[in-house]
């Protein structure tokens, strides 16, 4: 398009040159990736060679044995996994709520205690689910109990973190009103804060359940019960068709639970 006024063609100001910080950062990222690839001795040749060799694992994948999923033991393992995820989320999620509230300035006026709670929360968050499972398998032995304990702490970590972020954004007005009327801090949290965060908190519980369901498969590999223990059993015997059958079923269950959970959560917020 030409401008109506002669000699007054509008041009946007020249695009500013990318900052040297951005250039240097991108360069560093590329260099780091290349260096790490070299140091872990990654090679496409090896990858292709291994994949084209006769491979029992891959052959099992092509003929998964879904029928044994309905065996007593596998079914029980499935139910155990669901139970683990539900119980772990419920208990951990309930504990996470006060932990998140006691870490806020309005929920805990006592500064040393608040710092203590925040530190505890940070420690719980920094330990990954698998490490919790290893810790508890070592402490209380193989079985469902270490799995439950691991998911309990993992749920606290996830739910308290997400809830804490929501608590940062609550409307402080009702808090002031409750305190000004002579309410105690727990009363204030219950009447002025909880209604504000309840939808988000419920959504975090469901999200925690999704994560726990997935995590429970891995936990079994280190001896913490559930479907993972069953998968580990067949893997140890080299029965790959059975392994893949279980994985397939597990995938379906997780997929369905996640779809339902996502649609429910969308309605909550």
């Amino acid at each position: 398009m030409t401008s109506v006024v002669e000699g007054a063609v509008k041009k946007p100001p020249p695009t500013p040159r990318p900052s040297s910080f951005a250039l240097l950062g991108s360069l560093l990222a590329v260099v780091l990736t290349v260096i790490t690839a070299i140091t872990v001795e990654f090679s496409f040749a090896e990858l292709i060679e291994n994949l084209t060799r006769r491979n029992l694992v891959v052959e099992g994948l092509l003929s998964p044995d879904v029928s044994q999923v309905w065996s007593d033991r596998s079914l029980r393992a499935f139910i155990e996994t669901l139970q683990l995820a539900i119980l772990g989320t419920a208990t951990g999620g309930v504990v996470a709520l006060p932990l998140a509230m006691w870490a806020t300035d309005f929920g805990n006026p006592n500064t040393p205690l608040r710092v203590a709670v925040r530190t505890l929360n940070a420690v719980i968050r920094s330990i990954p689910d698998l490490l919790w499972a290893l810790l508890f398998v070592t402490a209380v032995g193989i079985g469902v109990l270490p799995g439950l304990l691991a998911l309990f702490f993992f749920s606290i970590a996830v739910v308290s973190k997400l809830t804490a972020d929501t608590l940062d954004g609550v409307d402080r007005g009702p808090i002031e009103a409750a305190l000004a009327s002579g309410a105690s801090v727990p009363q204030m949290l219950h009447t002025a804060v909880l209604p504000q965060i309840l939808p988000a908190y419920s959504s975090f519980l469901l999200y925690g359940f999704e994560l726990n369901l997935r995590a429970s498969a891995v936990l079994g590999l280190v001896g913490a019960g559930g479907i993972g223990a069953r998968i580990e059993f067949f893997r140890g015997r080299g029965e790959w068709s059975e392994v893949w059958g279980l994985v397939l079923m597990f995938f379906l269950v997780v997929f369905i639970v996640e779809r339902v959970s996502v649609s429910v959560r969308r309605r909550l917020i």
Partner: protein
Amino acid sequence: MIRLVDATVEYPNGTRGLDGVSLEIEPGEFVVVVGLSGAGKSTLIRTVNGLVPITSGELYVDGDAVHTMTRRELRRLRAQIGMIFQGFNLVDRASVLDNVLVGRLHSVPTWRSLFGLYSRVDTELAAEALERVGMLERSHSRATALSGGQRQRVGIARALAQQPKVVLADEPVASLDPPTSHAVMQHLQQINQNLGITTLVNLHFLDLAVAYGQRIIGLREGKVVFDGPGEACTPDVFEGIYGRSLTAEDTLTDDAELG
């Protein structure tokens, strides 16, 4: 009822919210506090229920020394003092009745309130307070479903449900339109006259201050620069309080006449 003796509030950043304020408010008075924003109106009102502690001087409410109170004693004091806010400070997702019941929390043991187990007396007091501001039929509406004026009436009901001896109102009509502002001010006036509750209201509209204040206290830079009956407030007096000439923004209606 309320007595300040050389009360000063110094904030951690060094600014003085109140600077050596001494005044006495008698039971049943309706006092309006005026001043520019930042003059210390909000600070003054919040020292009375201990939301803002005074850093030096003395403060007595009903003979009790607020400046030496423990947390427990402060809660007991606050139970007797209702507060009304500029932003209403309602819980949006809760019902009108639940919002008003917040005013009863001080009389409910914590464990009972966590299960929402309010006694019949508490519920009746909340209903009575809602009736007084004409909002009883809306008890089960969500606070979000109400207009600004209705929300402030719920805020007043919450304060009334406390059965307070004193009501503090911090710019209660600053977010409302002129007719609604008058309606809310009239509610406060009636409560003061019918129930004999000592009332302290911050306002920045001077015509409202003159219309409703039995007594007007003028604050400037944390100091009391005027203290007298509403009739004594001429535009000259207000210019003295504000330290500048008055503009149309200083009154609720443009053609308001002062004094």
